[in-house]
């Protein structure tokens, strides 16, 4: 029967407000509380720019990923054609000994922080080439440090998304404070000195114009036009036409 006390009235006001409280609403709509690490990582993982790198059939799947059906732009992945603008390389395809120096160079040209996704059996172990190939590199992690491995031959585009999501999780856990140690790679990454001697490039750019292509060497010309019998005269004409 008693009217509510002042204390009870106040309590009721807080528990069942007649309208939404303006101040907290405004705060939660306009202010974000986070850490530098979190927002920095969020920005980075939302705009992973992969380098357009494909050496074999795996890139067909990456190309499907770029297309409208799988559309990797929705993960913030924008293909870049320059290593200077990219922070992710998906090694799509077999890497040979001839390609290896180019791959390492491309990797080194990418700015830190950079990530590597080894895509497909070839870049993990050499794949089907690991039995007897004279030139396939057995696992791209012998050349550059790998963050995520995608098994498959070739992996489906969904598998690449899975790898990208795993990489995003990895990036979201990183901290600027640990940057010095995390950049120093802790993965399987071994480089060996081959003590090879650099040779001058064998391709000089004068391909079809090169002097050796203008006319056959004298001995060959003689051998080709060697008169042997009656057909020789007609046959010679034919050759000159060709």
């Amino acid at each position, binding site marked *: 029967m008693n009217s509510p006390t002042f204390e009870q009235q106040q309590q009721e006001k807080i528990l069942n407000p007649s309208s939404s409280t303006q101040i907290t609403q405004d705060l939660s709509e306009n202010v974000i509380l986070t850490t530098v690490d979190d927002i920095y990582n969020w920005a980075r993982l939302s705009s992973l720019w992969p380098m357009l790198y494909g050496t074999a059939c795996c890139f067909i799947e990456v190309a499907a990923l770029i297309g409208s059906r799988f559309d990797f732009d929705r993960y913030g992945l924008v293909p870049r054609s320059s290593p200077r603008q990219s922070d992710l390389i998906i090694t799509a395809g077999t890497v040979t*000994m*001839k390609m*290896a120096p180019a791959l390492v160079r491309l990797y080194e040209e990418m700015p830190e922080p950079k990530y590597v996704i080894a895509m497909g059996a070839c870049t*993990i*172990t*050499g794949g089907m080439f*690991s039995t007897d190939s*004279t*030139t*396939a*590199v*057995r*696992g791209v*992690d*012998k*050349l550059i440090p790998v963050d995520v491995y995608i098994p498959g031959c070739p992996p489906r585009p969904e598998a690449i998304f899975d790898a990208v999501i795993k990489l995003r999780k990895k990036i979201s856990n990183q901290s600027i404070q640990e940057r010095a140690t995390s950049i120093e790679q802790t993965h399987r990454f*071994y480089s*060996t000195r*081959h003590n*090879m*001697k*650099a*040779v001058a*490039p*064998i*391709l000089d750019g004068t*391909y079809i114009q*090169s002097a*050796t*292509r203008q006319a*056959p*060497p004298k*001995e*060959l*010309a003689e*051998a*080709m*036009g*060697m008169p*042997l*019998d*009656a*057909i*020789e005269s*007609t*046959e*010679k004409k*034919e*050759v000159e036409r*060709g």
Partner: protein
Amino acid sequence: MAEEQGKQAPQESEVKSEIVVAGKTSSWLTENGFDNEALAPDVSNIEMIKVDADLLLPIATALYGYGYNYLQCQGAYDLGAGKELVSFYHLIKVADDVKQPDEVRLKVFLPRDNPQVPSVYWIWKAADWQERESYDMFGIIYEGHPNLKRILMNEDWIGYPLRKDYVSPDFYELQDAY
């Protein structure tokens, strides 16, 4: 090239045991004084002719005059460790309205220690890269080729990888991944 190899390998052994009837092109070459040896035809019944390295150019020129205007495939294979290297030339006659063009395959057997054969680049330009590949993989020197450089392997690679006695270098990159 691998297919060609597989196709021909079983035929080699039969060559010595059977008497081979010389085919059309081989007979024509013999009639015209070009020394050659007919080999047993392959599974698709394509005439095969063994040719001396010295005589390859005159014979190839003659066949060009005879109508073989298209070098469909040039390649090489290794008969086995210590045996000869073979450089082959698959020729066909390309013309209008032909359903079944004449085909012939020339084979040059080369000694392993000094595999030298004249280049047919100056007759069929198609031989350019194919001879480069045969050089790269088997170390066959095509004399007179305008640009005989490695085409597939690194420019500083040592050895010829498709020879049967090739030993792969023990590079770290080529060792098994675990």
